[in-house]
């Protein structure tokens, strides 16, 4: 295992120390492993808390700041944080207008956030609303699964909900906009290589030199199928087709097209993928209103990419364009 780390068991603690030093505008709670907006709690504003296993940086800690999250809880690598953390985050950002928990749909995240919400309401009297993000079309949402995984749409949710909270919408309205984004967004990912969890010390799975995994999750969970390596244009098809089959993206004001890198895939390749994806969308009559290209929800050192489409309207576009100032996403401020 080749990694720039000190102790494989302490990567989250050590990285958080770096975040604290690099971003004095944020507040870091080292005990609870929280990244918190410097000016939290913002009185009268709905507080936004997210979190999850580490290893997906910049998600979630890199999305804390004005116009996005109020706090993020960092779990161990690929492991949901624990209720104590979410409780501390919820208390820290409660400005009296309630707190939203943005939860990616994984059994562990759901259960830990559920326990935290019970505790926050019972112990601290904070009004908590939880919204679950489940956008990964690689997984069939049926009785036979834990439901779709939460992946790329989470990034878009955090930006758009952040803008909605910033402009003063109330708890119910912020929850509504999150649900709308989750309903109108879909993702699909792929991997060229496995990732290596530091504490495990070796790749999570073996992928032969001539194969790739289609429908991969962001934790190295195996995907839909393993296929022969193929040119970018074929990979684009394998990702875009299931997304378009699952939801009708035509007829609105276009889509936000988000091409995400899994951690070890350079920007050069992501732009090649973007060109192929854009041309497929064009052929399908889906206009692109905005784009986002880069590694925003990663899987440690995995090589690969994912595509997320979100059908937008005027309101969502305005919220997307609103100023945001976080380490990972910044514009207009």
């Amino acid at each position: 295992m080749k990694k720039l780390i000190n102790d494989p068991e302490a990567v989250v603690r050590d990285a958080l120390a770096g975040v604290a030093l690099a971003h004095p505008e944020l507040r870091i709670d080292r005990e609870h492993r929280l990244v918190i907006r410097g000016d939290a709690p913002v009185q009268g504003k709905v507080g936004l808390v997210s979190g999850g296993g580490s290893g997906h940086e910049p998600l979630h800690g890199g999305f804390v700041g004005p116009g996005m999250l109020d706090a993020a809880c960092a779990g161990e690598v690929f492991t949901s944080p624990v209720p104590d953390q979410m409780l501390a985050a919820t208390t820290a950002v409660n400005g009296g207008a309630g707190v939203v928990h943005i939860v990616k749909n994984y059994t562990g995240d759901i259960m830990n956030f559920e326990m935290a919400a019970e505790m926050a309401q019972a112990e601290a009297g904070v009004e908590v609303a939880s919204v679950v993000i489940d956008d990964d079309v690689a997984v069939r949402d049926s009785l036979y699964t834990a439901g779709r995984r939460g992946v790329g749409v989470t990034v878009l949710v955090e930006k758009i909900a952040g803008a909605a909270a910033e402009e003063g919408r109330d708890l119910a309205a912020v929850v509504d906009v999150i649900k709308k984004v989750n309903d109108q967004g879909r993702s699909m990912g792929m991997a060229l290589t496995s990732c290596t969890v530091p504490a495990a010390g070796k790749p999570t799975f073996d992928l032969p030199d001539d194969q790739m995994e289609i429908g991969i999750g962001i934790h190295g969970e195996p995907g839909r199928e393993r296929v022969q390596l193929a040119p970018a244009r074929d990979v684009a098809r394998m990702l875009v087709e299931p997304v378009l089959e699952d939801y009708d993206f035509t007829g609105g004001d276009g889509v936000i097209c988000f091409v995400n890198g899994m951690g070890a895939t350079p920007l050069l390749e992501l732009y090649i993928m973007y060109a192929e994806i854009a041309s497929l969308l064009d052929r399908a009559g889906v206009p692109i209103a905005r784009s986002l290209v880069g590694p925003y929800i990663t899987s440690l050192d995995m090589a690969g990419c994912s595509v997320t489409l979100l059908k937008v309207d005027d309101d969502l576009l305005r919220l997307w364009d609103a100023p945001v100032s976080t380490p990972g996403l910044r514009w207009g401020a």
Partner: protein
Amino acid sequence: MGGLVSQSFDVATATAWLRRFAERIAAEKEWLTELDSAIGDGDHGINMHRGMSAVDEELRSSGSGDQPADLATLFKRTGMKLVSSVGGASGPLYGTFFLRLAAATGDATSLDGPGLAQAFRAGCDGVMARGKAALGEKTMLDALLPAADAFDAAIGEGGDDLADALKATADAARTGREATIPMLATKGRASYLGDRSIGHLDPGAASSTLLLETLADAVAGSDGS
């Protein structure tokens, strides 16, 4: 012996159980992680090790005045420690298991066979409630529930001592664990795999089997000494 479940399960035995469980988890960390790599995200051994090390450390560090006076205190501390240190799916599930065990033991300082079987059943119910899963979904419940049934059956027959009953319980857990291999996962991360989850042993069922094996060992050990 015959007809009587004579041994009792006290705070010292329970503490020995938790320590043995922590040890076995440490020893099998790699294996559990490997199992989770095949159908999950490759962290189950790491998660359980983090949690049980924390429990073990608390057990060691609690001074003589701080020793749990009753089983409920011991199990509540264990459950809370697991909830607050493990995360993932296994944290709330194992945490809830011990918190329910605590609730079921009241202020008892020791349990007899039927009492332990009842408490164990309560723990399993807690796992079912928290995870909304049932038998046959390829989870830790596929080791826990057959074990609970075997425990009840052994106690019901009234023909064995506690150590023997727990041996049968651990055997049932092992059988249940092996039975997860051909199962299709419909809960947890493994469910994302669809048919590809078939043919692999469930990591949570593996760690739960260690829980039952160390319980049997701890009681047999305290019996012999």
